[in-house]
């Protein structure tokens, strides 16, 4: 205990250089722990993008691709799943709820997501938080749109604004359907997940976007109400992208009594066929079609919650083996993990940099201790005279560096918690990264231990020098 007492008093005696050293170790350790916290925060916000969803189902393809487009709003879906197939699984006895998604369109760079009230009812993120509305109401009608928080903020939209939708994904879509304006009826609370960066319309609304120029692909069934609806389905099967054969009526007057809407019931993927030919004299107006008139033909993917989680794997197998259509079900946790692994090199790099910064901090300590040794030779000689062996001198120096490293690490830890407490909400508001504040876990303790151990080992450099000096000097201070 004497050596410990001596170490502490000696460090206190050199208060200025001690506090500089402790400060630099504290800053570097705070960086290391901070990086660790940000990493955990990133990972958590990443894997908490969705929660409580047992399966994500889409057409057969890559696991990560399905995850990307249905959870993160990135990349493009290739194929859709038919409405019939979706309903079949939605009514499966093991399934408690589903959230259907219809994707593939955008508005000024933000995704447009077709979904239904199940989204508001069942979507969960970050440990069970629900989707909530900041203003307005949920979209329920055909031309209602609810905006994610970022969409509303970045595009400066308010309730009642009209929004047009671009077909295709990207800043500049292929076709803008200006004639089919959606009205903002609600704005969602910020979730700090990709939910914030999308616009939400009904599945029916999404279906309607895909009609060429606002007219439903007419069929000759009983849905066509009157003779004024001359919409004739194109039978050439051309994709609408390369030919806009739909000729809009140019008379521009509304016919309220004309209810020409006829939903397509063929269930085809919309990209492949856009046969709708509008009435040549009667402009088809969005307002003329009601939600009941639209029949949903397809969804892109859907989330599944099971009644009993033990059924998840069996259900996944069943969906993967589904014979009617090529379908795939993935476990979001597994897929997210797989995806995070791919991003792992970034966090390794981040961590590596932080470790080097800590090493630099410890080197500063080494330098400070080493340079102090010359002026401490007298002290060493006195200690020798009262019976301290050279190994005790060595122990004193090593203990001093351990104390410095430990004090620095603890101060750094305190600094991180202080900064987190002060800046957590600011970081969350500015960059959308929620960094949880939690008591130091095994990782923090491990890093703390590592820094103290590194301080211990590095302490041997000045300590060994002091040892040799003590041996050489003995009781006299020789130059």
């Amino acid at each position, binding site marked *: 205990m004497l050596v410990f007492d001596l170490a502490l*008093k000696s460090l206190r005696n050199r208060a200025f250089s001690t506090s500089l050293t402790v400060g630099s170790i504290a800053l570097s350790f705070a960086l290391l722990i901070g990086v660790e916290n940000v990493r955990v925060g990133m990972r958590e916000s990443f894997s908490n993008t969705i929660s409580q969803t047992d399966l994500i189902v889409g057409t057969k393809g890559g696991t990560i691709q399905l995850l990307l487009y249905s959870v993160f709003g990135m990349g493009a879906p290739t194929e859709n799943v038919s409405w019939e197939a979706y309903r079949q699984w939605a009514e499966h006895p093991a399934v408690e709820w589903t959230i259907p998604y219809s994707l593939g369109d955008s508005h000024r760079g933000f995704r447009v997501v077709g979904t239904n009230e199940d989204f508001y009812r069942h979507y969960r993120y970050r440990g069970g938080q629900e989707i909530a509305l900041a203003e307005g109401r949920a979209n329920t009608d055909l031309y209602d749109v609810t905006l994610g928080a970022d969409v509303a903020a970045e595009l400066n939209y308010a309730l009642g604004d009209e929004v047009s939708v671009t077909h295709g994904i990207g800043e500049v879509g292929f076709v803008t359907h200006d004639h089919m304006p959606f009205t903002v009826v609600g704005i969602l609370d910020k979730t700090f997940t990709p939910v914030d960066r999308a616009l939400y319309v009904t599945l029916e609304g999404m279906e309607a976007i895909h009609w060429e120029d606002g007219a439903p692909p007419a069929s000759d069934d009983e849905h066509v109400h009157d003779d004024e609806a001359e919409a004739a389905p194109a039978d050439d099967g051309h994709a609408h992208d390369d030919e806009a054969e739909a000729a809009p009526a140019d008379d521009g007057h509304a016919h309220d009594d004309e209810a020409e809407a006829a939903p397509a019931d063929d269930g085809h993927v919309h990209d492949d066929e856009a046969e709708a030919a509008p009435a040549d004299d009667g402009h088809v107006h969005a307002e003329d079609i009601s939600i009941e008139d639209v029949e949903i033909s397809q969804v892109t993917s859907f989330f599944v919650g099971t009644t009993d989680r033990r059924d998840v794997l069996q259900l996944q197998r069943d969906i993967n083996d589904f014979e009617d259509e090529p379908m795939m079900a993935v476990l979001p946790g597994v897929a997210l993990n797989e995806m995070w692994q791919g991003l792992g090199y970034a966090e390794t790099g981040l961590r590596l940099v932080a470790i080097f910064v800590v090493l630099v901090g410890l080197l500063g300590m080494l330098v400070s201790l080493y340079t102090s040794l010359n002026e401490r030779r007298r002290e060493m000689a006195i200690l020798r*005279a009262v019976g*301290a062996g050279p190994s005790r001198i060595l122990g004193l120096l090593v203990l001093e560096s351990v104390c410095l490293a430990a004090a620095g690490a603890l101060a750094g830890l305190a600094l991180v918690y202080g900064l987190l407490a002060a800046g957590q909400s600011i970081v969350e508001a500015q960059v959308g990264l929620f960094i949880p504040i939690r008591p130091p876990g095994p990782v923090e303790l491990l890093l703390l231990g590592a820094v103290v151990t590194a301080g211990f080992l590095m302490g041997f450099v000045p300590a060994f020098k002091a040892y040799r000096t003590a041996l050489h000097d003995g*009781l006299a201070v020789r130059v």
Partner: protein
Amino acid sequence: MSLAIEVRGLRFRYGDGPWVLDIGELTLERGTRAFLFGPSGSGKTTLLGVLAGVLAATEGEVRVLGEDLASLSGARRDAFRAEHIGYVFQMFNLIPYLSVLDNIALPARMDAKRRARLDGAGVKDTAALLADHLHIGDLLKKPVTELSVGQQQRVAACRALIGSPEIIVADEPTSSLDFDRREAFLRLLFQECERAGSTLVFVSHDRTLEGMFSRTISLPDVNKAVL
């Protein structure tokens, strides 16, 4: 009377350097107040280092209290010194970051055997008592940096004396004091050595103090390495 120090055939040099010490025979009886004098460079400090067990004799026999230090390991010599020897330097005797009391108490805290020699009294009480004897009882709480040189040397004497070691080695402890203070310091030192029953080895190049000692040794006379 048994011998406190018995040196035979001692030769010492640093590394491969020239011989610094070459002493055929040197003995000191217990309870002696020995005055060891010699000019600078006559090997005084080196001899004290060997006697205190900090330096290992290159050749020969160095018996202190009957123990041949030359045959002990470095760690054993350190332990021996901690238990049996009190040491006073010429100057800068004190550890700057310790209080007066902590400086005095240092040997007792360093070594359990030295602590065990306090006759049952606590380290602090013993240190305070010694400080009183040397008239520095009112300085115990002061930082050592605020003491005068004379006060510092008394603190150093207290530290050497705590736990009543058999041998007190003093390396020119009075050279930085003026003449009156030298005498006063020496009287106090003698008084405490007597109280503790310690043998005193006092080194100086200043022969004016010689008369106060019971035995005088001229180092140039015994050390054949210096010609």
